[in-house]
């Protein structure tokens, strides 16, 4: 789709790529921009307004964009390259702790590797329930894929990870499916029990959820991460608002 060495389209502040420059120099900056577009898109998908149902059209368009980027990255084979670059930045301790957080019990039972995207999707299933612990876990899950993948990619084929990623995106829309149950039984029948284990774990860990949220974002941030703390603040304001509504009603 995109030939290396050609000037990229539709990225702002395009750098002039001289004709004499080899494609090699062009690739990192294009990939960096593509990666930042991917990050931005994932953040956008997370930041569904807590109070009003998110705009489905916007969510679908962003999710499709993310899929496109991921497909291209897989085709390019640059997915591996990006992740080996970021390996050194994450400490092993952090990897282990996030690994535990993000493994669903089902994945553990099956002894699967590469839990990141699987649980990323699980977090998304209840991101509409405005639980701050979920927000925190979602945020951390976004960071872990790139860190975890550095170990995981050597073992798995790109194809499998593509499937995981696809699944995680797709399950964003399951949220809406699950959010409109006809009966109370439906509401509970569709809930995945393994999630509650994660939930209990997280709420147990988070004594002060507000502080925990911001701290975790800063802890897990990598240099290429563009998720600003301002997003965190808006989530906190929304949380206050929700508490207000719950108290008032």
């Amino acid at each position: 789709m995109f030939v290396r060495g050609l000037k990229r389209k539709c990225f702002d502040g395009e750098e002039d790529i001289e004709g004499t420059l080899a494609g090699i120099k062009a690739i990192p900056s294009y990939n960096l921009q593509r990666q930042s577009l991917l990050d931005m898109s994932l953040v956008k998908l997370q930041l569904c307004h807590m109070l009003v149902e998110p705009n489905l059209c916007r969510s679908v368009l962003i999710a499709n964009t993310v899929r496109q980027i991921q497909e291209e990255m897989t085709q390019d084979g640059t997915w591996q390259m990006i992740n080996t670059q970021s390996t050194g930045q994450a400490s092993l301790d952090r990897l282990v702790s996030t690994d535990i957080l993000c493994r669903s019990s089902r994945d553990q039972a099956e002894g699967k590797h590469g839990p990141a995207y699987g649980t990323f999707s699980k977090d998304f299933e209840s991101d509409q329930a405005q639980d701050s612990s979920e927000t925190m876990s979602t945020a951390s899950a976004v960071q872990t894929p790139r860190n975890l993948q550095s170990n995981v990619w050597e073992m798995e084929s790109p194809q499998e990870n593509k499937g995981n990623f696809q699944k995680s995106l797709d399950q964003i829309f399951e949220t809406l499916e699950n959010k409109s149950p006809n009966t109370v039984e439906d509401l509970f029948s569709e809930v995945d029990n393994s999630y509650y284990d994660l939930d209990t774990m997280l709420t147990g860990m988070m004594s002060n959820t507000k502080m925990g949220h911001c701290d975790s974002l800063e802890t897990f941030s990598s240099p290429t991460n563009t998720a600003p703390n301002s997003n965190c603040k808006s989530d906190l304001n929304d949380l206050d608002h929700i508490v207000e509504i719950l108290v008032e009603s």
Partner: protein
Amino acid sequence: AADIISTVEFNHTGELLATGDKGGRVVIFQREPESKNEPYNQGEYNVYSTFQSHEPEFDYLKSLEIEEKINKIKWLPQQNAAHSLLSTNDKTIKLWKITERDKRPEGYNLKDEEGKLKDLSTVTSLQVPVLKPMDLMVEVTPRRIFANGHTYHVNSISVNSDCETYMSADDLRINLWHLAITDRSFNIVDIKPANMEDLTEVITASEFHPHHCNLFVYSSSKGSLRLCDMRASALCDKHSKLYEEPEDPSNRSFFSEIISSVSDVKFSHSGRYMLTRDYLTVKVWDLNMETKPVETYQVHDYLRSKLCSLYENDCIFDKFECAWNGSDSVIMTGAYNNFFRMFDRNTKRDVTLEASRESSKPRAILKPRRVCVGGKRRKDDISVDSLDFTKKILHTAWHPTENIIAIAATNNLYIFQDKVNSEMH
């Protein structure tokens, strides 16, 4: 922010203009009849009625607010002295009846002028109450409430030419209602996949054909239009015609799909064409040609190199509407910086105008504006980088027969009339 205008619609004669806002209110303007005594007061629009159409609601099951913002207003064709309109928020459509009262009965036997019961001993004869003139009073009453028809957010409503039915479209489904029946509707389009994981496309707008009561069109987030025939089957998931323009490979980017998403679709008055708006263009489609539009007009192509920033600040998801003039010769759509654009289909000339207090004094002629993209810059040109993206004109309407346009600029409504000539300059 409650008075941000969210929809604008003329009625079928152009005598009335309705606006809906973010706070759930509807304001109706009425055109003053032209009088020879005051030639400069020709046909101005004044407030006729204001009412609260929708209130905010809270969906306790989902723990989500339902916004009271009015997404669309559509007038019903007038069938008697009363006017009727449909207004909708994300979930509920309401039918409102607007009536005038300019007379009241006086001379009751049992009650006095203030409505108090008379002392019966003072009543010595019977009288017939007579109607006496009074100050005009406009009364608005909700006649029907069409609720619980939509799981997703309603983006369009359209009254059928049969004047008995109308449709409402949300992101995934389109329902057909009878205007007199509120407890049920027919689902005529359902694009919800069995597995929500497979969702990649949503419905963005829909409209009935102006003359053929069995035909309607709906647009999608992937830039396609589907013309459906309700006679073909009860569930119109299979389109009769699919209108889609193949992608231009030289312009391909990660934003291609987003900018191809159709934000509005409008049939021409003739019923022969459809007008669509996507992020950067307006297109005219001939109903008989499915492969590509017959005309494409660039609204603000200078934004093509800014798509990443516009994606970041969410502007790329802005939904602009489009409009035909009465004779289908000129099309109009809004843009940023309170600019709006008009394209004359015959002369192929276009103009950019601005809706702002500074540049619009009463009876002043609007000055054409220009956006410069580098190179030679003329006086009064605006550079792309100084455009104000918070000032967006999403909602515009054109009088059904005359050259009068209504432009909603955030919380201000501008009404422009072209008295001198109708040629584009």
